């Protein structure tokens, strides 16, 4: 565990000694801030009009459902762009600069290196979530949102991000060119993102399969505060698959290097 942690901490620190962390955090803060503020504005507008129509007797609108849920749902779109930026360098950079030789000739197992790098990237991703939480916590000053579904959504986001990062980690082992790794990651994530669109006009087994394989529908239940086993299983398998493929790819790297 200490070996994984050593690798992870180095990766995490590198994000902050290079501009990557700041760019990713700033972009996220701006975009998420915009989603959140506009969602909040809409909510206030809408609830004011409901109050006006229904009078004092109307039940108050649910802030979880109208503000937190959509803004966190939108957040996953931002991830499509940010995750490739986070993961593209993980292995591509090491291959380009030759430092991969240091890692592969150190007394480490491949999984120490892979899990360490994945974890390092996940830590930066967790910082993004922290920015989101900071925004949302403003709500607690003025109203009383339900914190349990919020916690579950955060867990869902962590799992979804973890899956995306695992895929990005794998794709980064394939090339020594960061741009190629980033573009590949973006392409694959986008494809996984839109895979369920097919199910809106088809109901064949194939489209159901696509819907299951798509990455975003599995977050829906989480965002409502529901942990479903199939969603949990999907994300955990996606993470394992990404890391497993990375390991295989690293082994292949030794053969062809």
């Amino acid at each position: 565990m200490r070996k994984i942690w050593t690798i992870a901490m180095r990766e995490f620190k590198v994000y902050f000694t290079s501009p990557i962390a700041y760019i990713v955090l700033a972009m996220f803060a701006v975009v998420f801030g915009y989603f959140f503020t506009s969602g909040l504005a809409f909510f206030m507008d809408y609830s004011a009009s409901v109050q006006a129509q229904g009078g004092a007797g109307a039940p108050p609108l649910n802030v979880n459902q109208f503000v937190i849920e959509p803004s966190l749902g939108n957040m996953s779109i931002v991830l499509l762009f940010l995750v490739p930026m986070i993961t593209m360098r993980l292995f591509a950079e090491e291959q380009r600069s030759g430092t991969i030789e240091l890692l592969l000739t150190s007394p480490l197992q491949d999984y120490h290196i892979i899990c360490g790098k994945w974890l390092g990237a996940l830590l930066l991703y967790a910082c993004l979530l922290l920015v989101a939480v900071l925004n949302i916590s403003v709500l607690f000053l003025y109203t009383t949102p339900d914190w349990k579904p919020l916690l579950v959504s955060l867990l869902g986001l962590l799992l979804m991000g973890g899956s995306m990062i695992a895929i990005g980690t794998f794709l980064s082992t394939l090339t020594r060119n960061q741009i190629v790794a980033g573009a590949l990651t973006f392409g694959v994530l986008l494809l996984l993102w839109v895979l369920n669109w097919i199910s809106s006009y088809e109901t064949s087994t194939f489209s159901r399969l696509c819907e299951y394989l798509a990455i975003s529908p599995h977050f829906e239940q989480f965002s409502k505060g529901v942990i479903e086993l199939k969603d949990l299983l999907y994300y955990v398998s996606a993470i394992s698959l990404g890391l497993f493929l990375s390991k295989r790819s690293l082994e292949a790297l030794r053969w062809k290097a």
Partner: protein
Amino acid sequence: MIQVEGVTKRYGPKTAVSNISFEVERGEIVGFLGPNGAGKTTTMRILTGFLPPTQGTASVAGFDVGKSPIEVKRRIGYLPEAPPLYPEMEVGDYLRFVAAIKRIPKKEIPRRVDAVLERTATGAVRDLLVGKLSKGYRQRVGLAQALIHGPEVLVLDEPTSGLDPKQIIEVRGLIRSLAGEHTILLSTHILPEVAGTCGRVIIINEGRIEASDTPENLTAQLQGANSLLLDIDGPAEEVRERLELDLAVRKVVEHEARNGRTVWRVEADKDDNLTRRLAEAVVTSGWGLYGMRSLGLSLEDIFLKLTSDESAAVQAEEEIPEPVAESDPSADEGSESGEGEDE
């Protein structure tokens, strides 16, 4: 300490290393010599567990590289040709990171880092970013990285490539100072490096081992004969006859004409007193001796002889345009001495 047995490495159809075997004893400094692309780096990468061999086995300190890679990696310090440095880290942080992944206990890390910084004289750059270092410092930090876990075996791939002459001397000195504590295998294509630092040389070419011996023995073995250049002021025929009188002398050739004198090339059997006797003979005959130089085979010649079939062709070509060669006597001498060995 290092044992390589019948190792072959193929990349697709290309064979990088072909059935090589060698051993390195504890405490030895062995130079791995060969032209670029000879298979030096591949062999080192196999030893360090970076690449698996296609065939054959390699073991370090008694552990098989394929079967117990972790044990081997703990005992090897490896400096690849391009030092594996992270430009965005400070030197101290970098070494602490390397120490941690080399499984040094946490408590011991600060002590080890201090020790290697001192050893490689890099204490002054401890707080600088690796990316800001000069080439010489990078190489030394690379060495520090290889030394940090106190490995029994050091594998250094072209440790002086790309350095300026002063840095080369410093790095060589550093490597020599590491002898004894560590068993060292270093690769190079620069010959003086081997002569100056290594106790034994393994010459590798096109993936095969061509020779393995001490630098002195290699020179002696391949030399066999002695050639001398004598710059003499005297009547040509008499000089030739007088020189041929010496029993050790096998052949006397007019090498070139210089300032009205003749430079003779004398080929003779190995004889320690030859120089002295020839000088005496010239002087007692009343001629002037303007210069005398031994044309011993240098490691360069041996290297070329062993590693390239083309070099023979190149030498032959060089000999044809005699007048042109005159303008560059040193090149001419080199090629002729090589030719002398072939006879």
